[in-house]
Every structure is written in structure tokens, then in C-alpha cells.
């Protein structure tokens, strides 16, 4: 039995049938969208995992170098050495559309033309460990940026997949069965009405004939 009240009329039936067609079509499209999103997401998330492993290992190594560097110099010299960085990084943010999800694309530019121009100090008073550690950070910088891109994309895609999955499920398990049930209910109701009209007509015809020809009286005679 239909949960909600529906008018058992032909107009309602047509309306519901149209709605069902739309729902089924929408369901198919959303399902396709979900599958494609999932494919893209899994690809990205694998890359994300690899990048993260790489970046974490890289930062770990760089931190080791930094500890060494700090051990070899006084705090003051270290502070002065890194006080005014001469390099600056700027990002150009573009967007890439993946299945109607806008994911950011980062493109970096450096202030000085040579991106390796990172040493903001003279080499006289600092230990070579500091050079090494800064260089090691610089080496993983492109990976770090790609990681940022990748991880953000994963987060955005995950949210979109969840949304799409809910929509698909709502259509599949709620909307479409309910529409089918309502349509069935209307069809049965209309059929029932038709049958009862038919019977009524037959009965009336009998009664009218009886009145015109008086069959039952004639039989008795």
C-alpha cells in the first residue's frame, strides 16, 4: 500500500510515470558519475599515499640535518643566517574540473629567477650542515606542493563521492520503489473502477430490458 496519499486519477498516473522515468534516468547518470569519481579518487589517493611517504621521509631527513646544523653553531648565528630570506615563492592557483568538482592546481614561481637561489647568508660563519639541510628541503619542495594539490583534491573528491553516493542510494532505495508502488496503486484502483462501472452498466441494462419486455412475467405465463 502506498505510504502517502495519492489521487487515483489518470492525470496523477501520467505525472508519476513521467517522474519515474526521470528518476530512473537520474539514477543511472548519478551511478555513472559515482563510478567515475571513484576511479579518479582511487588513482589520486594512491598518488597521495606515495607522495606523503616521500615527503615525510624527506622532511624527516631534513630535520635530522637541521639538528646537526644547530649542534654545530650558536643559536645567534643560525638566527641571523635565516633572518631575512632572499627567496620568495608565489603560487598561481588554477582549477581543474574533475567530474564537476573543481580541484586546485598550484603552479609556483620564485622571486629570483634561479629557484636554487636559497641561501640567504654568507658561507663564512655557518656550518656546511646548514647548507645541506636547506638543500634537502629544497629538493622535496616540488613534491610537497604536489602533495598539497593531491591531498586537497582527495578531500574534495571524497566529499563529492559521499554526496553522490547518498543521492544514488536515496533514488535507488526510496524514490524509485515509492514511485513504482504509487503507480501500481493507481493502476489497480483505476482497473477496479472500470470493472465496477462495467458491472453497473450490465446490471442497469438488465433492469432496463426487464422493464421494457417483462421477461419474468412472460416466463410465468
Amino acid at each position, binding site marked *: 500500500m502506498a505510504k502517502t496519499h495519492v489521487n487515483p486519477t489518470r492525470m496523477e498516473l501520467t505525472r508519476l510515470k513521467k517522474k519515474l522515468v526521470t528518476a530512473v534516468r537520474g539514477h543511472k547518470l548519478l551511478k555513472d558519475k559515482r563510478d567515475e569519481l571513484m576511479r579518479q579518487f582511487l588513482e589520486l*589517493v594512491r598518488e597521495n*599515499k606515495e607522495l606523503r611517504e616521500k615527503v615525510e621521509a624527506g622532511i624527516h631527513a631534513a*630535520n635530522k640535518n637541521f639538528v646537526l646544523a644547530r649542534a654545530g653553531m650558536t643559536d645567534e648565528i643560525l638566527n641571523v643566517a635565516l633572518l631575512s630570506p632572499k627567496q620568495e615563492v608565489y*603560487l598561481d592557483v588554477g582549477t581543474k574540473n574533475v567530474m564537476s568538482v573543481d580541484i586546485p592546481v598550484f603552479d609556483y614561481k620564485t622571486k629570483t629567477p634561479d629557484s636554487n637561489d636559497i641561501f640567504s647568508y654568507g658561507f663564512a660563519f655557518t656550518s656546511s650542515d646548514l647548507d645541506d639541510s*636547506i638543500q634537502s628541503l629544497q629538493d622535496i*619542495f616540488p613534491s610537497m606542493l604536489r602533495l598539497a594539490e593531491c591531498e586537497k583534491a582527495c578531500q574534495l573528491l571524497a566529499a563529492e563521492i559521499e554526496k553522490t553516493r547518498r543521492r544514488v542510494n536515496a533514488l535507488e532505495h526510496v524514490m524509485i520503489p515509492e514511485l513504482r508502488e504509487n503507480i501500481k496503486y493507481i493502476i489497480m484502483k483505476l482497473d477496479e473502477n472500470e470493472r465496477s462501472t462495467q458491472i453497473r452498466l450490465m446490471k442497469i441494462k438488465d433492469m432496463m430490458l426487464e422493464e421494457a419486455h417483462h421477461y419474468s412475467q412472460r416466463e410465468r405465463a
Partner: protein
Amino acid sequence: MYRIAVLGDRDSIYGFAALGMATYPVNSADEAAKRLKKLAEDKFAVIYVTEAVQAQIESEIDRYRTVQIPAIIPIPGVSGNTGMGMRNVKTSVEQAVGSDIIFNNENK
């Protein structure tokens, strides 16, 4: 033109300044949360946050999960790797797929 920021305890992040990123040393969760809010409103597209700080201001960071910019990315600090970053990736997978199919219990 967007820039890159690094947020965390001073020892973990001062090296990034040499690469041309903007570093913001913070000492407490309150300070970190305030700073993060300011950075997110400003022109910073990527904010790297050390795992130690990230753990303290998780709820603030979650707010930026669904917006396109900024991307807030956890990085290990000088005190070592807590596996927090990987856990974040795992959360994404669980959100999307419903269960974790990439990591398969390899880092619990």
C-alpha cells in the same frame, strides 16, 4: 598571487623560511587557531601545519576540508612522525568508499 605558509613550533619550521615560504611559529593551541584563521582569510593557498599543532586544532582545520582554498597539509615536525598525515588520507578514503581499501590495516 597566492603564497605558502608554514605553521608550527619554531624548531620544526624555521628551515622553510629559506625556501621562501612564510613561517609562523606558534606556541599554544589558541595562538595557532587564531593564526590559522588569519592565514586562511589572507592570500595563502597552501598552509603546512606540523602534526603536533594539527592535533591541537583539529576542529578548526576540519572547517577548511571542503573549501577549495586553502589546502591545509600536515607535515611531520622535528619531534618525529606521528602518522597523523596518513591517518588523514585514510579518513578521506573511508569517507568516499565506506571502508578503508587502500591501507588495509598497515598502519594502525
